[in-house]
């Protein structure tokens, strides 16, 4: 458990809300999962909402635009999902209001991944944004200035400078968000990836793009082409990344970011 915890009482400060007014830019939501789960999603035709132990609700998690991964920490085990990620990009237009919106990955936060920027006096709920997609645009405008900067994890150059010290919520968030920048000692793109959760299953017709390992291009047994056919039939375009058994995730994750960036640029979102 890290420094950042859930509030057990009292009213959340929600001090990051309405800090700025962003445009009404449309954006995609990104769901990163392992290949095994992705097969099941494609077979079932939906991304299932599953029980979240933190919020005790059936939820599906996304990040706004950005494929964000947990990066390796020394002496910690890696997980197979890091080696075989499968990325879905979902059109947020017709999903309705989200269950919650946070300016970072809540799971990583509670695990202590962002402790370098956190304060024991600020609780998870204090960082919550409004439960709307507009809140995402507002937050990007306030902290990053543009969607492109947000995608790269680059907060505004002077971000946090004008926040008074007593305003601990925004102040600590400014510290946490900088952990996602490449110049950080422990770059973790989850630290500033805006998390959006829905409390319902998301059917494949909302998915518009997918990124998967290149092994799926070949189908000696027929089952891979069947999966690609299902994606195509569902109107989902896709691209592949180069997977090698001796490449650490930190090597090919940037490739996935590049592919997603290209897609979002094509959609006019970046």
């Amino acid at each position, binding site marked *: 458990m890290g420094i950042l915890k859930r509030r057990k009482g009292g009213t959340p400060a929600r001090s990051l809300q309405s800090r700025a007014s962003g445009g009404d830019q449309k954006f995609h939501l990104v769901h990163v999962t392992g290949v095994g789960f992705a097969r099941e999603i494609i077979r079932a035709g939906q991304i299932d909402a599953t029980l979240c132990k933190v919020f005790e609700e059936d939820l599906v998690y996304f990040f706004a635009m950005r494929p964000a991964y947990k990066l390796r920490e020394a002496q910690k085990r890696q997980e*197979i999902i890091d*080696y075989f990620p499968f990325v879905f990009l979902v059109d947020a237009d017709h999903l309705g209001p989200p269950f919650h919106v946070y300016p970072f990955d809540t799971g990583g936060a509670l695990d202590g991944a962002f402790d370098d920027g956190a304060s024991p006096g600020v609780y998870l709920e204090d960082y919550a944004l409004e439960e709307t997609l507009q809140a995402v645009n507002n937050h990007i405008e306030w902290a990053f200035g543009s969607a492109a900067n947000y995608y790269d994890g680059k907060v505004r150059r002077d971000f946090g400078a004008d926040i008074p010290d007593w305003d601990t919520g925004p102040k600590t968030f400014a510290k946490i968000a900088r952990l996602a920048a490449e110049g950080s000692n422990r770059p973790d793109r989850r630290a500033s990836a805006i998390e959006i959760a829905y409390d319902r299953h998301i059917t494949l017709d909302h998915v518009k793009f997918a990124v998967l390992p290149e*092994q*799926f*291009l070949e189908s000696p047994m*027929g089952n*891979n082409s069947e999966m690609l056919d299902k994606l195509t039939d569902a109107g989902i375009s896709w*691209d592949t990344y*180069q997977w090698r058994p001796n490449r650490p995730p930190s090597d090919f994750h*940037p490739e996935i970011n590049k592919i997603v960036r290209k897609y979002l640029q094509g959609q006019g979102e970046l």
Partner: protein
Amino acid sequence: MSDAQLRLSLIGWYSCVSHGYALPLFGQSVGANTLYIARTAVSGDHRSTIAAFDLIDVDDQRRLRNEDIISLSVGDPWHDVFLWNGVPYIGTPDELWNEISRYHADVASRAPLSILDLALNARRPDVALLAESAMKFLRDHYGDTKARSWRQQWLRGQADIAFRRRLVRANLSQDLSRNLSIEEPVVNILELHVPEGLEAQAQRKSTTEILSEISPLAAFLGATIDTALTAPALDLELPLSVPPLSSAEETSIRSDAPALVIVSGKRAEEIARHLKKCLGSDPSKLEMIIAKSGRLPKSIGGRARPTVAVIVGEEDRRDFLSSEVSSLLRRQSEAGALIIIIPALPLMKPSRLFERADLFETRSGYVVLDTAIARSPLWWGNEKRSIDRRISDVIELALLTARSSVVRRELLHSLTDEGLILSVGSLLFEKSRRTLREPALRLPLVSEASWVPADPKLADKTVKFSLRINSDDIPDLTKSEQVVVEGRRLEKRFSDFAVAVTTSLISRGRSRSTIDSYQIEEMRAAPAGLAKTLQFPEDLSPLRIRRDGGTIKVVVTSETPSLDAVKSADREGWDIARYTDTPTLRRLISGETEQRTFPDEIDIGKIRSTEVNRLLATRGIDLRDVIRISFDDMSEWLDRLPDDERDRAVAHVRPLRTGARPYGDESNDHVLRRDFLAQRSRAATELLDVLQLRSHAISASVPLKRAADLEKCWTRSPDFQRFVLADGIVPGIVLELQAGEIPSQELFVIDGDVSIPLLYRSRVFAVWARATLPKASSWMARFSVTSTFGGFPIPKPFRIIRLDENRTALICDEIPSSVVEAVQKIDRSIDRGLAGLAPENWREAHRAANSSSARSALDAFICEVYRLPEEASDIHILERLLELNAKLN
């Protein structure tokens, strides 16, 4: 990292797909729960060394077999796990490339990207061709844009590794190369973008070296590459010239035209009959001609065909292929055709074509199809099909696969001095998911003509290529089918095959511990003198099988053993059986037979058959020749008739006795002759009316299937008893028919007296019946009127008397009363047995009665009649019967 983590065992793998490179998993020991992955000194470089092991959480990993596990240390070369056809191959790039050499063509056809990586990592010159195939594959399947996008990514990966190697040598961070990119400003013209920091660290010289490394790769993929600064002018056009194909090359790749099949010889025609039913009816797929006496019709013309197949009968051993056929094949081969020689398997021996490569050309493009796979006990297809149908299945599959350009390329270019044998097999996908069950992945394509180990990891040098073809590649295949095609050097390994067959028989239906208690040992020498009695003495495998209950010695042969061969083996204390004779092999393995006997499949040569003996037995009626009526229908019908007509109608109805349930409720199953319906009587009209309620397909105008048998079964001499003998069951099951009963076709009718149960229940008849049962050409054992009855010698005091032109009866004037009593005792024993059994278990009652003392008395009398000692062995009895048969007139 602890010392323990400096050396770990490669114990398993995880993969997101079922083929190609997998993620190798390491552990401290075979069953370790804590798993690690290896990190290479140069990320992504398969020729790099292991730099460290990192912990990983994996729930669903696969484990290697104990014998495949290897121990690796930090500093050792990187080892890959490569999956193909469900089998994990482990090794360095060079080891992997060599280990799967026989699957190269298969991997290239179904996973062209994976084999490109394999070849590149092993630094093989094949990269040039494979790169071209990879691009073609991507273009064909996903379009040009995706293919070019993949090319950029792939080349970027290679440039990245090249930079990283230099960065590691210079002790610099590999992360510097992360932002390396390749762009394609103009189609097929690529720019390598080297970030400033990397350029500075790696030095301009390195960039130039790396460009020269990846430029050939780009060229193989149809592009040029340079650094962004010196990219070629935008209007540069790539010279793309493809040399035109020769006409022979055009023919060789033109696989969609119909194949020509030449049928040469009587046996070939028997097989081709079945082929005609499936493929022959579609002229777009197959054109079939019969070469009568080796002559070809003039209409055949001289146009080039993509595939010419010859089904060759071996009736004339001097001249397998006539000069006319040989000359046609040569012309077609020169014009680019694939020539498939198809041995029409002789029923009782192997084909000489599998061992005589000199009988046809051993030049490129000539292959012999392994049709013998059809009679292998490890046959991949429907076991209930007759041998000839199975052979036609193999031929059909081979002709279909010959339409695949990948298969054609391999067959047309795989040449060995010894000739090439083509093995084909079909795997079915599971219905619910398009995946193969794991055991099914290892299709045993083995036969008397060609054998390779079932374990694909035991790479066999005789295998020239091994391919799997999906329905996507051959439109005529069903969606749920995958075809395995292998080209092998023409080389028999009968001993290995015989051991594999015997092992499979031991494994079937036994527990692991029981299987482990068996030991098969191949003996050095076969019984002395046996070779002289065989036509294929080189195809025999003397085996010693040890099990808990004792040891057996059996010679497994490729041909049906003659009586001389059986006697020769018997003299030395050996059993002998052809590998196709699974009932005999099973009996021997399980130790069911106490006394040595001859095998079920035995070649007794040509036997005589006399008309008077043949007429003795008549097969029961074909049920399509009568109207079968249930008791309820019959009651309804008769109720509709006035009393007088009812009595007349009842006279036409006969109780039916079927072979399946001869002791069932007789009142429930009756038959009438079909011509009864043709009468314009009220009874016939009413019957039609009743039956129309239940049946729509009864017509009196359809010709009878077996009119003569119907007639003989329907009429009966009042002077004799009527018995029936159950078809195909040894020892004979004889039961007496009651008045008016009509037997169905699973029963043979024999008229006479008590001689019939006496003779046909005897061990002497059992020996004869078993020796004359058909040999592995059908899955159903059936007696033959000609061999089983027509050839069975019946000596005095038995007499066959002629009743009329078409019927005879068997009687005996001098049966001792003790023998008659023995027969009656057996009947009573059967009746008692039946009383305690369910009707469907009627055979049990007969079997039990066979072991009674009365049966011994019966056998003793019959042995005396045949002048055989009471304790005569089966082999001795058969020998005596053949002696008597030779004297039949």
